[in-house]
């Protein structure tokens, strides 16, 4: 039997659906006599019908056929945007035009709604249409942003303006709906990003974050966001989460520090970065050149490598290894074909990919300027009301709040805190500079602009959130929580260095509260210890948090010698012992009362004196060393701060705590050696190289000495140490335990 091409090229869409949708789109309108768009006779009804098709055929049958048809028929660019352009000038006055515009928007919002494949609900149909629709949506985004005759986004807002003007109490559900779709339309435009799995054939710059920011600036969308956010709680209530999402997709990945650098400084910083990158590349190439063959590739050198026992040799080919012992060892290793099978990494689904906030985003200089102005105005007017409102909504677990919103909330809190601190620093520098006229006012000095997230309620929510996401293994959530906590700590630190006495006092108070709970201390140690394959962004967050926390706690506990912590566990064990003792004494009381006792004991808490060195010791153990080693493995991608962070940690391990034995492991030694001596080592011109070189040399010396003292280390060097033997390996004698009599 012969197959024809027609059979192969079967329409993926049900032909009947296609016929219906196409006829509706045709009836909608087209280019009229005067060259502009002219409506069909029943354009409004057609729009409503199209929406019904999208809602019922796709929604209820759980398919994407209609969306695909509409994408193929060029509905958005050919009709919907044209309609908006046509009605735009009179949309607020003319009732009919307003109706048309609302209907158009109601169609645009579901069409631009980010496509996701729901693992539970998805059918084959979704997977078939997915890539096509994702690409079509990027084209929608481009068309909306680049549309040249009208400001589409602005028109969308204008459609909602009459409803927004109505006071909150008098608004009908219809009005609320219109406001919602206008805001969701904006969110969709920010949120849509080119899918990583499918290549796109349009210029990415046209749909990049910079393009969105420029369009927002041009079409006054920032003003809309500001006015909604600043009057949240008064004129707007349920819109808070949509604003949160818009902000999240607008700001994620942008470097807040860089945003507030002065232009001159920024430029020099950028040149520095370029310089250092070129330098890095140079040293990398030099590294290759040092090991590159000096003759053609068929020169055919072969060497014998004598091994320990005199008779055995390995053969290695290639003249690049001649006379270079280390290189030949490396080559011997490299030529092995077998790789240890790795567990495949967890697949990240579409949502996670979109939410990914650890990827840095580069902005054009105009976008940078615009977003900076926006962020400043936002901090001045809207930050406190919006974030207070959101916090309450999250606490109350309001229906409109979804899981992702808490993550976005904490990410944005950390982002804005960082931005605010960066802004103050530049302001201070400016004020200190005698040439500029700027003077710091008392208001500039205070931290009132971010006060709503620096209170006890937020800390409680944050702690609960971190605990919950750790328990549920929601790593991305935990990542956001840790970032937030780190920024809170850094902000508090800047506050305590402030010139204003009140600020110092407040900072002191906040620190008091943060450091008072022992459960917080334990959680941080625990997260650091339990890192496993959560990715670089998480690793960065967890190491930074531990670093900042430990450093600040050290400072704080030195200032407050009689610091108290509230500890739960201790109370429990004491009570347990008591209970046991009672059980032994009075057998008849039995198990029931014992359990009651224990339950009561779990709730009681006791205060005790905080001992920093004991706490720091908790930080230093094999698993936290492993976490930091995992982080250090990226040494060529780490920046100065990150390298410093790792350096401080290992310095603490090896010399301050005298637990270098935790680092006596062949893989760690090899990593250190490779970092300094290469090949592909740390750039020797980098500022942190010297620090590291010194540390590693110093550390290696202790290793050599230790091995000479205790040859048994040669074997132990292969393994992580058992707690029982750590003390002996470090000191050469067993710990004197108080002997029991």
């Amino acid at each position, binding site marked *: 039997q012969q197959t024809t091409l027609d059979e192969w090229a079967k329409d993926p869409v049900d032909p009947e659906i296609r016929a219906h949708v196409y006829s509706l789109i045709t009836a909608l309108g087209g280019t009229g006599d005067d060259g502009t768009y002219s409506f069909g006779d029943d354009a409004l009804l057609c729009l409503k019908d199209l929406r019904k098709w999208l809602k019922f055929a796709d929604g209820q049958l759980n398919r994407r056929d209609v969306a695909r048809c509409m994408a193929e028929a060029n509905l958005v660019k050919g009709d919907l945007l044209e309609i908006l352009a046509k009605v735009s000038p009179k949309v607020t006055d003319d009732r009919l035009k307003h109706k048309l515009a609302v209907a158009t928007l109601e169609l645009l919002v579901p069409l631009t709604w980010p496509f996701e494949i729901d693992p539970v609900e998805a059918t084959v149909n979704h997977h078939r249409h997915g890539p096509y629709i994702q690409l079509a949506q990027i084209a929608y985004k481009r068309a909306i942003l680049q549309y040249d005759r009208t400001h589409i986004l602005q028109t969308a807002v204008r459609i909602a303006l009459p409803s927004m003007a109505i006071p909150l109490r008098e608004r009908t559900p219809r009005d609320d709906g219109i406001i919602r779709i206008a805001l969701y339309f904006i969110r969709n435009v920010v949120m849509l990003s080119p899918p990583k799995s499918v290549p796109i054939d349009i210029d990415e710059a046209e749909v990049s974050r910079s393009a969105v920011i420029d369009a927002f600036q041009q079409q006054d969308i920032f003003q809309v966001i500001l006015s909604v956010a600043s009057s949240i709680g008064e004129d707007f209530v349920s819109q808070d989460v949509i604003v949160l999402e818009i902000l999240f997709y607008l700001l994620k990945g942008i470097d807040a520090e860089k945003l507030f650098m002065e232009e001159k400084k920024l430029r020099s910083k950028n040149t520095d970065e370029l310089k250092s990158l070129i330098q890095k590349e140079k040293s990398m190439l030099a590294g290759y050149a040092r090991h590159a063959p000096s003759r053609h590739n068929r020169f055919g050198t072969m060497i014998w490598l004598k091994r320990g026992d005199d008779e055995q040799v390995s053969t290695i080919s290639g003249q690049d290894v001649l006379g270079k012992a280390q290189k030949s060892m490396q080559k011997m290793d490299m030529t092995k074909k077998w790789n240890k099978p790795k567990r495949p990494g967890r697949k990240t689904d579409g949502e996670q990919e979109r939410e990914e906030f650890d990827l840095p985003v580069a902005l054009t200089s105009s976008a940078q300027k615009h977003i900076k102005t926006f962020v400043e105005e936002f901090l001045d007017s809207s930050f406190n009301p919006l974030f207070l409102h959101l916090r309450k909504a999250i606490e109350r677990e309001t229906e409109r709040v979804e899981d992702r919103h808490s993550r976005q909330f904490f990410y944005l809190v950390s982002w804005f805190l960082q931005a605010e601190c960066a802004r103050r620093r530049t302001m201070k520098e400016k004020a200190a500079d005698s040439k500029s006229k700027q003077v710091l006012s008392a208001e500039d000095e205070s931290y009132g602009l971010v006060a709503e997230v620096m209170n006890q309620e937020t800390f409680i929510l944050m702690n609960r959130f971190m605990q919950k996401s750790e328990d549920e293994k929601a790593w991305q959530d935990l990542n956001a929580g840790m970032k937030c906590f780190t920024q809170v700590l850094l902000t508090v630190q800047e506050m305590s260095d402030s010139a204003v006495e009140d600020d110092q006092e407040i900072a002191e108070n906040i620190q008091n509260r943060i450091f008072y709970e022992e459960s917080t201390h334990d959680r941080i140690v625990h997260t650091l210890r339990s890192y496993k394959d959560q990715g670089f962004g998480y690793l960065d967050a967890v190491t930074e948090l531990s670093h900042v926390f430990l450093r600040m706690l050290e400072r704080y506990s030195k200032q407050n010698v009689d610091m108290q912590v509230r500890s739960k566990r201790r109370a429990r064990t004491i009570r347990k012992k008591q209970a046991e003792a009672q059980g032994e004494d009075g057998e008849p009381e039995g198990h029931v009362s014992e359990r009651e006792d224990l339950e009561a004991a779990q709730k009681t808490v006791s205060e005790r004196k905080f001992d920093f060195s004991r706490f720091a010791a908790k930080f230093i153990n094999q698993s936290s060393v492993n976490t930091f080693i995992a982080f250090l493995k990226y040494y060529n991608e780490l920046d100065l701060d990150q390298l410093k962070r790792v350096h401080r940690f290992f310095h603490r391990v090896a010399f301050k705590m005298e637990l270098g034995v935790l680092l006596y492991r062949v893989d760690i030694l090899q990593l250190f050696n490779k970092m300094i001596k290469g090949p592909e080592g740390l750039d020797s011109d980098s500022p942190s190289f010297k620090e590291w070189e010194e540390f590693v040399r110093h550390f290696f*010396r202790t290793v050599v000495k230790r091995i000479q003292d205790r*040859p*048994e280390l040669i074997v132990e060097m292969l393994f992580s140490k058992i707690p029982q033997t750590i003390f002996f390996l470090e000191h050469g004698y067993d710990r004197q335990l108080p002997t029991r009599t």
Partner: protein
Amino acid sequence: TADDSGLGIDEEIKVVKKREPIPKLDDNRLLSDPGIPKLRRISKERLKFKGKGHEYGDIARMLNMYQFWLDELYPRAKFADGLAMIEKLGHSKRVQMMRKEWIDEGKPKHNAREDED
């Protein structure tokens, strides 16, 4: 069963070639003679340190010793992979017991007691 009468003589015997099992780097191999016992031996014979001023050279030489040793013990694996596998084996009860024993051998007390015996 029904086939019992013919004693199964008439049945054709299918020869299934078994795949050669891939050698594993497990605790047996690690504790066998070319494993850790050999490492203990060669480290005493070969490892000479130059001391102060030669830290990097000393450590590099030591790392090379490990690499040769691992290559002979389990040629399949790259150095880093092999190290990771061995580290993991270190968590098993049996290897831990042996490790403790080796450490105890180095302790002065242990030697003294043996002398008494």
